[in-house]
């Protein structure tokens, strides 16, 4: 037989290739760098990200399938690429100094971040369940390692182990789901699936539905929806803070990318079925997330729960299942990237070695000792709480409007009531910062140029999107208009 080699469209893989190459370069060169002088590898990583960004921009607009329909390079995917690149770049910026302080600055760290990003990108652009699955695994495995990167740290180990065990557990379910869908539809190609579903007369095939359900489980785990969320607080707490930031934004976004693409695209005909489930999931997710967050004392844990809650909000966009809903998801994730990364950046700046200054109480009196830092923190927190004029507000506004537009008034009401609850615990931090006297003498902060840059990017993003959202909304809308 003859091997008909398909058309190899390298261009369409631009970002992924660039990142992988950058990562490999890092791996090669970091060896030659002297101990604790590993900064160049970080910069190499940043360089790679910038190039990847550029290539993403170049790919914008002309969407095309490539590699025998394994991937679809469309604005949807590219928009997510941008989010991944932002979060990766920011995490690297945050890490440089942080890892030094933790005495674990190794080139591999940055390489792994890049690998994870590549994985995410494949999740976003993949149009075959296999591509998506492999992307997801690439991402997850890199994240497992990053979570456990602080080898001497019990917490780090523990979080890595928990994440690994549960991650593998859940991806087994995901895999089962894929198998069932494969069985029911005879293909793993998203296009094929949707075609099959549009043709078929019998949508109540239990195998199909079960497969769909298990996919929900698999992605639900990654985006941390209740009841698949329990790993989140522990893993977020234990992982290196910069990695936590990366996870909370990148992983969530990637999972959502695949989730949305698969459900709003190939499984569209099952919409009435998954809509119910997602409605319930979204409600319990945000409720549990918000309520549980109130009792937290560790800021990383609190942010973990808040990220759970945000997953709940974002799912409202999927429940709405209309163009506005999907675009609002994209927009929200973009906004979320900036504000959440910003918040974690502040946490890092304030954090000390050996997990000091991670308790919310440690923030007391910070507001007038470090006005700038406190101000930034308040901006990010208010944005997370969804108070204008910040990105978070506009994001919530669109998510809720999508729900209302689709007629899910009650969902919207539950949503706003939840954000009321969330306000309470975000406020608690500002209360600590501005309204309490310092409990302990605050040590100096670990500023570093890279960190400053990261913070500036974050705050500008948060405010810019908050005040002049329309260009970004346009982007989001263009990104979804194609495949809806």
């Amino acid at each position, binding site marked *: 037989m003859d091997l008909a080699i398909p058309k190899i469209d390298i261009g369409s893989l631009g970002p992924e290739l660039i990142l992988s190459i950058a990562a*490999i370069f890092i791996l090669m060169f970091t060896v030659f760098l002297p101990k604790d002088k590993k900064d160049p590898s970080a910069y190499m990583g940043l360089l790679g990200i910038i190039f990847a960004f550029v290539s993403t921009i170049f790919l914008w607009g002309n969407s095309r399938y490539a590699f025998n329909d394994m991937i679809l390079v469309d604005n949807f995917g590219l928009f997510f690429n941008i989010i991944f690149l932002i979060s990766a770049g920011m995490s690297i910026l945050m890490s440089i100094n942080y890892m030094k302080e933790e005495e674990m600055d*190794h080139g*591999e760290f940055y390489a792994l971040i890049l*690998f*994870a990003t590549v994985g995410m990108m494949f999740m976003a652009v993949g149009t075959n369940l296999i591509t998506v699955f492999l992307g997801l695994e690439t991402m997850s495995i890199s994240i497992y*390692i990053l979570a456990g990167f602080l080898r001497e740290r019990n917490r780090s180990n523990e979080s890595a182990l928990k994440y690994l065990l549960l991650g593998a557990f859940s991806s087994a379910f995901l895999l089962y789901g894929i198998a069932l869908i494969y069985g029911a539809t005879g293909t793993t190609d998203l296009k094929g699936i949707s075609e099959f579903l549009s043709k078929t007369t019998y949508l109540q095939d239990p195998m199909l539905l079960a497969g769909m359900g298990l996919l929900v489980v698999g992605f639900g785990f990654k985006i941390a929806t209740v009841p698949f969320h329990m790993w989140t607080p522990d893993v977020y707490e234990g992982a290196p803070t910069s990695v936590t930031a990366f996870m909370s934004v990148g992983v969530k976004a990637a999972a959502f990318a695949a989730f949305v693409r698969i459900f709003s695209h190939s499984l569209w005909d099952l919409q009435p079925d998954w809509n119910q489930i997602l409605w319930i999931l979204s409600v319990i997710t945000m409720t549990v997330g918000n309520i549980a967050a109130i009792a937290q004392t560790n800021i990383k844990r609190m942010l973990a729960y808040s990220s759970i809650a945000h997953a709940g909000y974002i799912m409202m966009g999927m429940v709405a299942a209309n163009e506005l809903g999907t675009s609002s998801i994209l927009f929200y994730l973009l906004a979320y990237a900036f504000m959440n990364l910003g918040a974690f950046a502040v946490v890092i700046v304030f954090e000390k070695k050996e997990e000091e200054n991670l308790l919310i109480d440690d923030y007391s009196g910070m507001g007038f000792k470090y006005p700038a830092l406190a101000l930034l923190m308040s901006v990010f927190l208010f944005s997370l709480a969804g108070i204008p004029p910040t990105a978070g507000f506009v994001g919530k506004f669109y998510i809720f409007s999508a729900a209302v537009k689709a007629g899910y008034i009650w969902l919207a009401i539950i949503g706003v009531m939840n954000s009321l609850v969330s306000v309470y615990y975000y406020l608690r931090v500002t209360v600590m910062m501005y309204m309490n006297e310092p409990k302990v003498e605050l040590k100096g902060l670990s500023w570093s140029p890279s960190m400053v840059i990261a913070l500036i990017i974050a705050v500008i993003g948060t405010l810019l999107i908050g005040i002049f959202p329309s260009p970004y909304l346009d982007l989001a809308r263009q990104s979804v208009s194609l495949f809806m």
Partner: protein
Amino acid sequence: MTAFFFFSIATVTVISALLVILLRNPIHCALSLVLTFFSLAGLYVLLNAQFIAAIQVIVYAGAIMVLFLFVIMLLNLDKVEKVRERHPLQKAFGILVASLLLVALGSVAATGFLYGSKGVHTAAEVGAIGNTKAIAGLLFTDWVLPFEITSILLLAAIVGAIVLSKREL
């Protein structure tokens, strides 16, 4: 004939799988897992997926399980797991829910319709070219991209494994 093979292998598989989760000594568990893998390989053969069967033996029973055993030895865990029930309730409840899961999945498996459009690779045809060659053909044409992705995946994994376990970086 096949039926006999199937049922006998199936029983072996199930039993060995049960042993994996019931035996106290990690070593034994590992070994029974190996047995499970072998019997699975057997089933693959029955499903005339020889190539898969082969790598099942090589990769799983060979590489992966060896790795397991190696680690168990390394950390010399080959002692009986301390029987100290932290939360029996969790155990009981877990089993209950798991069996419910079995009900669900079983019913799906039993009642599931495989309306999926038939593919081109009928047993006969595959037999003609040979299972391995057929798979290879697909793997390096249609599935080349996933194949490449796995390379990154593995690279990441290797790097990670080293970073985490190497004594001195």
